[in-house]
C-alpha cells in the first residue's frame, strides 16, 4: 500500500513535467503546425544557462528567472531563423530542421559545457516528505514543480482567453489570412507562440533536472514521453496535454514499479501506437468531421 501511494504521487510529479512539455508542443503545433522535436533540447539548454547563472551568483531564483528569459528568447530566435523559412514547405523539411536543431543544441551544450553529468540544485529540499510515518515518495521540490506547472498553465490559459494578445494569437492560428486582413501581425504572433512554448519548456527543464543529472542528452526520453502525452491528450488541446501528461506519468510509474524499469519505454511505445491507431485525435479532442 505504501508503495502504491509512493508510485502514484511521484508519478503525478513526473507527469507534471510531461504535461509542461506537452503543453509547449501543443502551443507550437496549434500556432505553426510544426512539431518541435527540439523542445526537450531547448529545455536542456536553458537549464544549462540557469546552472551557469546559479553557480556564478549563488542564487537559485536568479538562475530560474534567467532560464525562463532564455527560453523566451531561444523560442523566438528559433522560430525566426530556422522555422520561418520552412513554414509552407513540405512538412518533411520542418521535421528534419527541428531534428537538426535537437542534435545541434545537444552538440552545442556538449561543446560549451562539456558532456559530463552535473548535479542541478533544487529549489526546495529533496528529502522525502511523510505524513506521520507514511512516506509519500515526493519531496517539497515535487510540490513546487506541480504548483509551478499548474500556475504556468493557468496563466497561459487566462492570457489566451482574456487578453487581446491572446485573442490575436488564437486568430493567427485559426485563420491567418483573415487575421491578417483584420490587422493582426501574424508573423509576430507565430514568434510569440514559439517564445511562450520555449518558456514552458524551460520551466520543465528546470523542474526535472534536480532529480537526476543534467547532461546534453538528459531531456531525450522526457521529450519523447512528453510527445506521447501530447498525442494521448490530443495535439489540439492544452487541457488534454496536462491530462495526458498526468495519466502517462502515473501509469508509467506503475509499470516501472511493478514490472521493472526496462518495460517503461516499451509501454510508452505501446500506448502511443494504441492511441494513434484507435483515437488519433487524442482522448480529449473532438473527433474530426468526416473528410472526403
Amino acid at each position: 500500500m505504501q508503495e502504491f501511494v509512493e508510485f502514484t504521487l511521484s508519478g503525478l510529479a513526473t507527469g507534471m513535467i510531461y504535461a509542461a512539455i506537452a503543453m509547449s508542443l501543443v502551443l507550437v503545433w496549434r500556432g505553426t503546425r510544426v512539431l518541435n522535436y527540439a523542445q526537450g533540447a531547448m529545455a536542456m539548454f536553458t537549464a544549462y544557462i540557469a546552472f551557469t547563472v546559479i553557480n556564478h551568483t549563488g542564487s537559485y531564483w536568479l538562475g530560474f528567472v534567467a532560464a525562463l528569459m532564455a527560453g523566451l528568447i531561444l523560442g523566438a530566435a528559433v522560430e525566426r531563423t530556422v522555422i520561418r523559412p520552412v513554414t509552407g514547405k513540405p512538412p518533411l523539411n520542418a521535421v528534419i530542421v527541428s531534428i537538426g536543431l535537437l542534435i545541434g543544441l545537444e552538440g552545442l551544450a556538449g561543446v560549451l559545457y562539456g558532456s559530463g553529468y552535473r548535479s542541478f540544485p533544487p529549489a526546495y529540499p529533496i528529502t522525502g516528505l511523510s505524513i506521520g510515518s507514511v512516506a509519500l515518495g515526493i519531496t517539497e521540490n515535487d510540490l513546487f514543480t506541480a504548483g509551478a506547472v499548474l500556475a504556468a498553465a493557468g496563466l497561459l490559459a487566462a492570457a489566451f482567453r482574456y487578453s487581446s494578445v491572446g485573442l490575436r494569437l488564437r486568430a493567427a492560428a485559426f485563420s491567418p489570412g483573415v487575421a491578417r486582413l483584420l490587422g493582426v501581425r501574424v508573423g509576430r504572433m507565430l514568434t510569440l507562440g514559439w517564445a511562450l512554448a520555449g518558456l514552458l519548456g524551460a520551466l520543465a527543464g528546470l523542474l526535472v533536472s534536480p532529480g537526476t543529472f543534467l547532461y546534453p542528452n538528459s531531456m531525450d526520453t522526457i521529450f519523447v514521453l512528453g510527445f506521447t502525452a501530447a498525442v494521448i491528450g490530443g495535439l489540439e488541446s492544452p487541457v488534454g496535454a496536462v491530462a495526458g501528461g498526468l495519466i502517462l506519468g502515473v501509469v508509467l510509474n506503475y509499470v516501472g514499479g511493478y514490472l521493472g524499469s526496462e518495460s517503461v519505454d516499451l509501454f510508452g511505445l505501446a500506448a502511443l501506437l494504441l492511441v494513434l491507431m484507435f483515437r488519433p485525435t487524442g482522448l480529449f479532442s473532438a473527433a474530426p468531421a468526416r473528410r472526403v
Partner: protein
Amino acid sequence: MPTLARHLGIAIVAAVVLLLATNSIGDYRNYQLTELAAFVVAVAGLTVLIGLSGQISIGNGAFMAVGGYIAALILADLNWPLIAILPAAVVGAALAGAIFGVAAARLRGPYLAGTTLMLAVALPSVATRFQSVLGGDQGLGFFVTVPGSVGSNVTLIHWQAWVSCAAALVTLVLLANLVRSRVGRSWRAVRDDEVAAALAGLNVARLQILAFVVSAACAGLGGMLLAMWNESVSPGLFSLTLSIQLLTAAVLGGLGSLAGAIWGSAVLVLVPTYLENLATSHGMTATTSSSVPILAYGVVLIAVMLAFPSGIQGALVLLARVTGLQQLARRAAGPLAWQSRRSVQSRPAAESSWSESESPRPESELSRPESESPRPQSQPAAESHEKGTL
C-alpha cells in the same frame, strides 16, 4: 530488360574494382569499408522511404537492430552459414517493417515521425527486458569466420569487406530497379499528391506499407552487416544516435538518390572521427571534443534543409550542369527533382495534400484561404526522369 542489364553491368564493373581495392588497401581501410557498405545498405533503404514514398522515419535503427539480433541469435543457436543467415535477417526485419507499417498506416507527417522516434527510443530496451535471451546491455557476440573455401591468406576483415560490399551492390541494383519500376512511380505519385493517386486507382495504404517493408528490409540487412563488422549486437550499437545518423546521411547525400546514400554514408563514416581529432588537437578535452561531431550533424541537417535540400548529389548534378555535362546531369537528376519541384510549388500556408491528410484537426481550422490556390501543372520534362538513370 535494358534497365536491369545496364544496372547489372555497372554492378559487375564496380565489383571488380572493389575486389582489386580490397586486396590492396590493408586491414584498417577494409574495416572502414565494411562499415561504409553496411551504412550504404541502410541509408539507401531510408532514402527511398523518405525521398520516394514521402514517409519520414527516424526509427530505422530499430529495424537494423531487428536484423542484427536475428542474425546473432541464428548464428549462436543454429549455426547456419552466412549465406542462409542473410535472408533470414532481411525477412525478419521486413516482417517488423510490415507490422509497424500496418500499425502506422494512417499516420502522416509529424505523427509518423514522432512514432518512429518513439520506436527508436523504446526498441533497445527490449534487449534489457529479455536479458536472458538477448543479452541485455552487453549484447550477444556475432563471430563470423572465413570459410575454408576462400583460401588461407584472406584475413577475417578482408572477408567481411567482401561480404559487405557484395551485399551493398546487390541491394543497390535491386533498389535501382525498384525505383524505376511501376512501384517506384506509384510511390512518387502518392508522395506528390495522395488524393490524386487514390483517385487514379492506386492503393495508397498498401504502397505506404510496402515502402516501409522495403526500407526495413534494407535496414535489417544493414544491421546484420553492422553486427558482423562490430562482432556483436548490443543496444548501444543500435541507439537513437544511429537512427539520427541514418537520417543525416540520407538528407546530406540527397533524399531519394541512391548515389546520395553513398555520399552520405561516406561522410558519416569518415568525417566524425576527423572532426573529433581536429578538436582534440586544438586543445579541447574529450568531454567537449566528443560533442563536436554531434554539433556538426545538427548544423548539417539544418543547413542542407534550408539552403540546399538536394544534398550532395544535388550539388554534383548542379556542378555537372554548370560544367556542361548536361547528359549526365539529366540522367542523374532523377528522383531528386522531388525537392526542387516541391520548393517551386510551395505556398505560404501548408496547403499541400501532405498536410491535409496528416493531422486530423477539426474541420473549422482547415478553412485557410490559401488552400484553394491551384498548383502549377507538372512540367513534361520532369517526367523524363523515368527514362534516365540515377
